[in-house]
């Protein structure tokens, strides 16, 4: 148990800098009272302050302090709480900060991260000149609403409460029970927030002749309830994350990398590039990777880049593969040596490149696709002759590569099989399809 302290305020930095009558005095005094009541170790308390007059608060506390950017305070608090769940992380923010960072606040509430937010809600911007904020009541006069506020004020506890906060309350600085309410919020596991309405004596009070009574009447008029409005026991995020996600395996075992020991010969004398032109869902990327991995097993170097539309399950799928006996520096393919056009979507994408092929190049075309004018040698592959494997589009590219490797002897089929075996889940089917590729008829 921690020793009881008389105060958590720092005598060296006092007094507070706020205007006479400003509610911020009360909030900080009550926060101090709450910390005293909870007897927390000051080295286990982090006060994260936002911007504006409320942002001046952290320096008066003899705890850890993080003074961050406008509206973003709850994001730093989240990072701190995630890293050190045992700490009490308190966010001090104004209604201006809530406006600029409301999105973070909704998400912190939804996430139910165990930080405690106290909103210094004085209904306007007290530091920059009394401009209207997201909580300025209807008809209120501010320096930017001389005609009276037309925008509906934001209901802060409702917004976080609706979106999963474990604890949400609203009150005013005139509440005699404020310190207790703040202590209750700090003690509550998960995201907690207290919206504290108060007077800005510099701007809002003189502009609107606001008083304690009028502040309370405004709450009634807006139908904004006070007291504890949401009280739940959902699991706190930083602890839930540790329970569900985190393990403690040694670093060496994490993200293991497959190595490809070269153990086959190849007949490649110069750099050769391939374009596999197919369709979404036809495992074109996989086929390109297998071609590359088989090449590496055969002592070559390889690169592979894929192209497909952002809507991944539709349209073309292209894999560009370069194989070389030496290091590949430039990975662009201006004119490939081999194009495998296996689907209409892919063919449409590579028509120009097919036209640019010369007589030393090779075009491998699915027999069902229309003929294309080209100077290259053309193999038309009829997959129907390879019965059940030939009818499945996801094996077409692997089978076409099987035909290519058998015919050219670029590298042994066994190296390609080694590559296929790297993914045990699909190995059996892929090997069977490769075997069936010897029945593909070539015209």
């Amino acid at each position, binding site marked *: 148990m921690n020793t009881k302290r008389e105060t958590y305020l720092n005598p060296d930095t006092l007094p507070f800098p706020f205007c006479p009558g400003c509610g911020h005095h009360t909030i900080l005094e009550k926060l101090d009272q709450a910390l005293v009541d909870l007897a927390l170790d000051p080295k286990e308390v982090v006060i994260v302050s936002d911007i504006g007059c409320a942002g001046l608060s952290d320096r008066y506390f003899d705890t850890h302090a993080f*003074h*961050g950017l406008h509206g973003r305070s709850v994001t*730093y608090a*989240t990072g701190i709480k995630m890293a*050190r769940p045992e*700490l009490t992380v308190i966010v001090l923010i104004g209604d201006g900060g809530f406006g600029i960072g409301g999105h973070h606040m909704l998400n912190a509430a939804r996430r139910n991260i165990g930080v405690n937010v106290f909103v210094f809600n004085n209904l306007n911007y007290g530091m920059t000149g009394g401009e209207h904020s997201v909580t300025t009541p209807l008809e209120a006069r501010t320096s930017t609403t001389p005609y009276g506020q037309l925008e509906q004020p934001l209901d802060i506890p409702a917004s976080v409460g609706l979106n999963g906060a474990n604890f949400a309350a609203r009150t005013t600085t005139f509440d005699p029970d404020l310190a207790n309410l703040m202590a209750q919020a700090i003690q509550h596991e998960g995201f907690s927030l207290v919206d504290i309405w108060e007077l800005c004596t510099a701007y809002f009070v003189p502009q609107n002749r606001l008083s304690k009574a009028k502040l309370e009447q405004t709450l009634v008029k807006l139908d904004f309830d006070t007291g504890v409005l949401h009280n739940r026991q959902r699991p706190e995020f930083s602890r839930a994350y540790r329970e569900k996600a985190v393990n403690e395996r040694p670093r060496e075992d994490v993200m293991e990398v497959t190595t490809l020991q070269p153990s086959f010969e190849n007949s490649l004398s110069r750099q050769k590039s391939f374009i596999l032109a197919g369709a979404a869902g036809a495992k074109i990327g996989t086929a390109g990777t297998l071609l590359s991995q088989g090449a590496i097993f055969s002592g070559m170097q390889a690169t592979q880049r894929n192209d497909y539309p952002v809507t991944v399950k539709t349209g073309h799928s292209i894999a560009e593969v370069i194989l070389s006996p030496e290091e590949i520096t430039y990975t662009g393919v201006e004119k490939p040596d081999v194009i495998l056009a296996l689907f209409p979507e892919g063919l449409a994408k590579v028509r120009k490149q097919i036209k640019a092929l010369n007589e030393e190049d090779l075009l491998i075309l699915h027999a069902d696709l229309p003929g294309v004018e080209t100077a290259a040698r053309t193999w038309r592959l009829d997959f129907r002759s390879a019965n059940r494997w030939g009818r499945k589009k996801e094996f077409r590219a692997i089978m076409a590569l099987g035909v290519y490797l058998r015919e050219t002897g670029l590298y042994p089929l066994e190296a390609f099989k080694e590559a296929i075996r790297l993914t045990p889940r699909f190995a059996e089917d892929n090997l069977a399809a490769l075997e069936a590729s010897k029945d593909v008829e070539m015209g």
Partner: protein
Amino acid sequence: MPQFMDGNRAIALGAIDAGCDFFAGYPITPATSILLHLAQNLPEMSGLVLQGEDEIASMGFCIGAAMSGRRVMTATSGPGISLYSENIGLAIMGEVPLVIVDVQRMGPATGAATTGAQGDIQFLRWGTSGGYPVIVLAPTTVEECYALTIKAFDLAERFRVPVFLATDKETALTKTTTHIEREHAPRVRDRKTADLESEFVPLGIEELDEVPAMTPFGGPHKLRFTTSSHDEHGYLTKDPQALDRLNRHLAEKIEAHVEEIAMVDVDADQGSETAVLSYGISARSAKAAVREARQKGKKATLITVYSLWPVPEDAIREALKGVKTIIVPELNLGQYTREIQRLATNDQEVIGIYRVDGKLITPEEIREQGGLL
């Protein structure tokens, strides 16, 4: 022993081997797979991975965690760097060790999400208010993605500053044969921590170029961290002397150590009057061009800059001695060329080769414009 992987995977692997134990990010093409690899792997070794509600939140999480003792990384692309901007300033001000990967795509704005570019090179250096320095490293290969990620963590811990790893869509997503030897990964230096005996002073430095010791939130000392201009105790100040000291310190701790950060590779060709100087993905085109030129009996020196910021001025000037023509290929309209122009002597001609059509600069273009055909 060879492997086959892309740059994003190598960066995730580098982060793991550098001891990264906190990552937060928001999905964005072409950087997303770094988030995915780490989300699937980092928690396996007690690391934490958060997907923020946006880039701003993700950077906020990173800064909070870094100041709580974590070794932290985030990854995004140009539009995400735009959203990071304000927090990059906070990380500079609060001296936060932080690695930021920028997988560049074509801008401005949403630009071309799946198209590579090198258009963020000046943005990374000047992307936040105040103009204070950061460190930017640029790998050219998948293997260097791994090695420079580890280096980025090391420099972040050493200098307490955001260190950027500037890659691009091509390097990030093109798989290549690699030879990464994880067992030989260099060790990352630990951040200097405040000793337990004496009083902790957040900006406790004797010399301006010194890096102050750190203490984490929840640690043995109470930490004051602030976005505001502050005195040595972390309190807001307007005192001209204190402001001058803070701001000069933020610049000096990097700029007085350019030589320690500098990474420039020079493949000199004796008696060559032409140099091809590049970085990132374009350095690969440069390498191919120089190799082809030499095969044809032309002389050319190849200079690859890995530490783009701070500009390794002395190392570049030294590499350019005796050179008459400097070719600078890059995938923008001359962002780093202007740095080279200011370093070149009056009798040196700088020729930029720029492409902004989404295609890589070809080795032929470099040879053609550099008189190396």
